[in-house]
């Protein structure tokens, strides 16, 4: 079973309520399902479709556009090595070559123990700290071959468990809008007048 758990359904409803239209919650909810299951399953997409009132095909249609969503089992740790210009100028290709050698798998695949998936990635907004990589979207800077091997050792030994959550979890905290402070989302067609704080309401 990979539908959302009851706790995640409650969270999903909280997220949906923030948007004037339900479908806006689609991407956040697919992320939530990936956090729960480690990748995006068909059951989860059906469940998200029910929650935001669209067809499962629409969920898949949107989700498949985005690179972070994975539709097959993925390693506990997803290592993305940047290969765009600034990193390439400072050894990204050599780093990838080394990574493939260390892990014994080609980019795009997962180690046989299911722990690490290695991928090519594009610019990670850390260009001054090249070459960079991300483990589950957490940056590592100026990575040397030795650094990479230490990183893999630390991931295998569980030394980084407190710093790097399993693949699928992005922020380890969440936004919660307190009920007594929330303005609330109104369907755009139900808003007919300007905001009250604008002194002169333009007509």
């Amino acid at each position: 079973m990979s539908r959302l758990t009851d706790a995640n359904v409650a969270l999903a409803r909280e997220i949906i309520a923030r948007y004037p239209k339900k479908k806006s919650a689609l991407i956040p909810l697919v992320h939530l399902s990936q956090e729960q299951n480690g990748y995006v399953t068909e059951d989860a997409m059906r469940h998200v479709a029910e929650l935001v009132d669209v067809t499962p095909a629409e969920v898949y249609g949107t989700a498949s556009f985005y690179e972070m969503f994975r539709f097959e089992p993925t390693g506990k740790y997803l290592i993305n090595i940047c290969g765009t210009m600034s990193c390439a100028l400072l050894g990204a290709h050599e780093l990838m070559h080394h990574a493939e050698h260390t892990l014994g798998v080609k980019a795009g695949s997962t180690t046989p123990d299911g722990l690490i998936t290695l991928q090519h990635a594009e610019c990670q907004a850390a260009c001054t700290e090249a070459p960079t990589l991300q483990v589950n979207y957490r940056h590592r800077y100026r990575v040397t071959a030795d650094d990479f091997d230490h990183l893999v050792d630390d991931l295998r030994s569980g030394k980084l468990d407190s710093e790097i959550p399993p693949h699928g979890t992005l922020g380890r905290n969440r936004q919660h809008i307190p009920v007594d402070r929330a303005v609330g989302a109104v369907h755009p067609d139900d808003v007919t007048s300007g905001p009250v704080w604008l002194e002169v309401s333009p007509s």
Partner: protein
Amino acid sequence: MGTQSPYPWAPGFYPGDRPQVVTSRFQYEDAHTIERYHATGGYEGFRKALTMAPADVADEVKKSTLLGRGGAGFPAGTKWGFTPQGVWPRYLVVNGDESEPGTYKDRLLMECDPHQLIEGCLIACYAAGLSRCFLYIRGEMALAQERVAAALNDAYAAGYIGTDILGTNFSVDIVLHWGAGAYVVGEETALIESLEGERGMPRLKPPYFPAAIGLYGKPTIVNNVETLSNLPFIALNGSAAYTAIGTETSPGTRMIAVSGHVKRPGVYEIVNGSTTFRDLLFGDEFAQGMREGRELKCFVPGGGSAPWFLADQLDIPFEGRAAGSAGSMLGSGAVMVMDDTTDIPAAALTLVKFYAHESCGKCVPCREGGTWLYRIVERIVAGDGTDADLETILQVGQSICPGNMPHASSERLGLEAVPFPYKMTTICFVGPSAYVPIHSAMTLFPEEFESRITKREVRRLIPVSAAAAAGGGS
């Protein structure tokens, strides 16, 4: 592993003896907390704005001539004025989808000073009558999401966000939203599509600005993270204090990331308009010159989409018109530097590959053309290109960008500059951006392509199997 910046919590950032508008708190490791924010003048600009009429706040921002920092450089205050009269609601969408190659500043602003961004959002919503704000952060930025989520929770608890803010009748929610990996979503109409739960494909234009028809078909202001982060300073100190920094056409400061083959790659908050590329690449306060014993070959002045500059262009200042007439653009504040060890076709390939990969597939010239360009440049780099390939690159390029293509001048080649911008057959800039780097590379370094290609009419046959390659048949 790790950064060499003086503040390890702000990797790559170097302060200097210069005005700091948006990075003033980067010196504090806890700059992201509401306690530090309060202790350093936080939310005072917003409090001051609340004592003024919204129209007066908007006017102050307009007078500051704050230019958008996302890439296009459009004045933010003017953009706010494009919302149609009497159409409600109006939304604010924060573009935190930083992903232009070479660009690294919005992530720092979100990680190190999220309250400054939130305060900027509040000021914008108050001034422009925007009743709901969506803060869209790039999916691949886990730490930025954590910091902004925590800051939003604290700001709600402190009464800065929500209903009847600080005892006034101003009410707004700020909703944290996060993406899932797609460069094109940085384009503002694609960002809106993504926020509506759709595939992130740019919308047809006109309307040119979502200020007219945006999120859910309603007037929507889309502003970049750095743009909004300037507002607390402007609200607190006034537009005159802001325009006192920088030049008339490019006031204030802006954040620039210098990466590649320099001694000290870094993110610098520079004085806008007057700082030159020579300052930035060679100045002691900045990147400190090329790596030991190396010389500058060329640089990308404004993110991966920008035509390349040579040493000939080092004295151009960070001013839009100056960069434009020299054949490029300032873009998103990203300078990528290449020294004389650089293999130019291979360097161009990294960018062509990026844009080909990131095409959303909506416009044919980009979807097909970008992929063609990638395949052709890839085989040239692999040593398997022909004369015909160079011609095909130009033909494919013309189908994406018809007419004259902007490029820099070169004394060495006797080339005159062709000014920015280009014409385009696509809705957004992803298509042209696949052509720009290879066009620059071929125009400024033709000899590196001539020496790379083979002079054969027909390419070598690619063996069907390894056995055939070994000559053993199959």
